[in-house]
């Protein structure tokens, strides 16, 4: 996939030979870069420069804990309160609330819309993120009208906070191969003895773990947080899962 990996600091000049130049596709800039017209591309955070000449794409890979909304992100939001037309939701602590219109749910009309109470969780997409406005969310695909897995989260479970980089790794299409996170597969598979649970990972660094068994919820959440904070590799993740499951079995 990406070839060149280079460490950059904010304001450093990127060697022009590293900037991908595709004959047809326009250059796409990911997080951590800004374009100063006419032709300067400057990093704004410290991280690793990722370039992809095939997709004509470049970005900075870094880890942080404070979520800044950007359009298209799948996030886990908590309802703060409801107004006449929309819900106000929190994406990250101490930030301005995001708005979630009452009608931005699958097959919602003025008469039939989901009634959400303060504190409830919703799995949503950021539909509008703009420096001068509060972010806007949706739980439905604007063109198809389908929820695609988004919507209010129901059932017993608990939310765990992880770093944004870890949430990104969990959200990768191939989390085990590309992201190096195998805890969830291990917990549900052979090492964990087939624990039954479900998860919803938000790009804002929140992971909801749901299961009928509270012990499973705690174990999965702890395994995720431990993997994130101690920066565990695959082998250590396996050992952690075995240890946690063994401890759980003893207490039964």
């Amino acid at each position, binding site marked *: 996939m990406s070839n060149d990996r280079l460490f950059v*600091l904010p304001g450093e000049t990127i060697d022009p030979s590293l900037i991908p130049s595709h004959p047809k596709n326009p250059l796409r800039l990911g997080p951590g870069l800004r374009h100063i017209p006419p032709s300067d591309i400057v990093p704004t955070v*410290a991280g*690793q420069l990722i370039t992809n000449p095939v997709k004509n794409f470049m970005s900075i890979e870094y880890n*942080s804990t404070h979520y800044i909304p950007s359009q298209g992100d799948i996030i886990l939001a908590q309802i703060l309160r409801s107004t006449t037309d929309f819900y106000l939701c929190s994406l990250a602590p101490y930030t301005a609330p995001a708005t979630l219109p009452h009608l931005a749910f699958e097959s919602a009309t003025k008469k039939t819309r989901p009634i959400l109470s303060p504190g409830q969780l919703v799995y949503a997409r950021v539909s509008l993120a703009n420096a001068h406005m509060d972010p806007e969310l949706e739980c439905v695909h604007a063109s198809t009208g389908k929820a695609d897995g988004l919507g209010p989260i129901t059932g017993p479970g608990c939310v765990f906070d992880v770093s944004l980089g870890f949430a990104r790794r969990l959200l990768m299409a191939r989390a085990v191969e590309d992201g190096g*996170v195998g805890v969830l597969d291990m917990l549900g598979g052979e090492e964990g003895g087939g624990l039954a649970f479900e998860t919803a990972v938000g790009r804002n660094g929140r992971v909801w773990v749901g299961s009928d068994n509270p012990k499973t919820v705690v174990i999965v959440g702890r395994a995720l947080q431990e993997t994130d904070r101690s*920066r565990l*590799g695959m082998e250590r993740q396996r050992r952690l899962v075995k240890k946690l499951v063994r401890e759980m079995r003893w207490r039964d």
Partner: protein
Amino acid sequence: MTATTLPEAALGVLPRADGSARYSHAGYTVTASVNGPIEAQRRDEHAYEAHIDVIVRPAAGVGGTRERHLESILQSSLAQIILVKNFPRSLIQIVLQVEDSPENDYVNTKLVQASLNFAIMPALMQTAVLALLSAAVPMRATATATAVAIMHQDGAKQTVVDPHPRDIEKAQSVHVLAFTSHDELLLAESEGDFTVKEWDNVYETARGICCRSPPQAKEGMAMLLDDESTGGPDMRQFLRSTMGFKVAADLHWK
């Protein structure tokens, strides 16, 4: 004389803050936490840019006029390098806690309150920049800072880098300079008697410490010799290697 220790830093020391750093150099140890961009209070809110809130806490006692003065200087310098226009109506909070200083803070220094504490400024500035980088707050450039004093010694004038508080008491003039990573002068505070020529000298010395070009251009041996001749640590290289370690650890899975 001057503390010849190399700067040391640790990032992410406070787990609940968005970004944090502990930095020690020349006898000073400062811990900084950065939170932001968060929602600003109504009175701090600015329609077009983020409000930078700098809080300096001394090692002993509560902050006074001296700390407020330091805060205002740091605030205006940091607002230049943070991309404040990206986050209108929000707040970026930087708290700098002085943990250790070579002077005795328990001695009542109220009498000299009006004078600025120059020796601590580079440490505060450097810690704030490291904590901002650790919080991944979007910035225009990074910054490096140093303090330089001009002293009378054996009938000749000498420039002392990172002076000890006792040197500062005896020094003819003391200067704090900070440079961005684009080699632009970010901060210049001076105190005492000095001529324009002396200031130019100080500027060149500080620039040599803050804006040394990356060493790969030179050969290994020449670099070593060069390090000795210019004197003082290479702040830019220090910043780069500190952040490099942090990023490499964060992206261990790649």
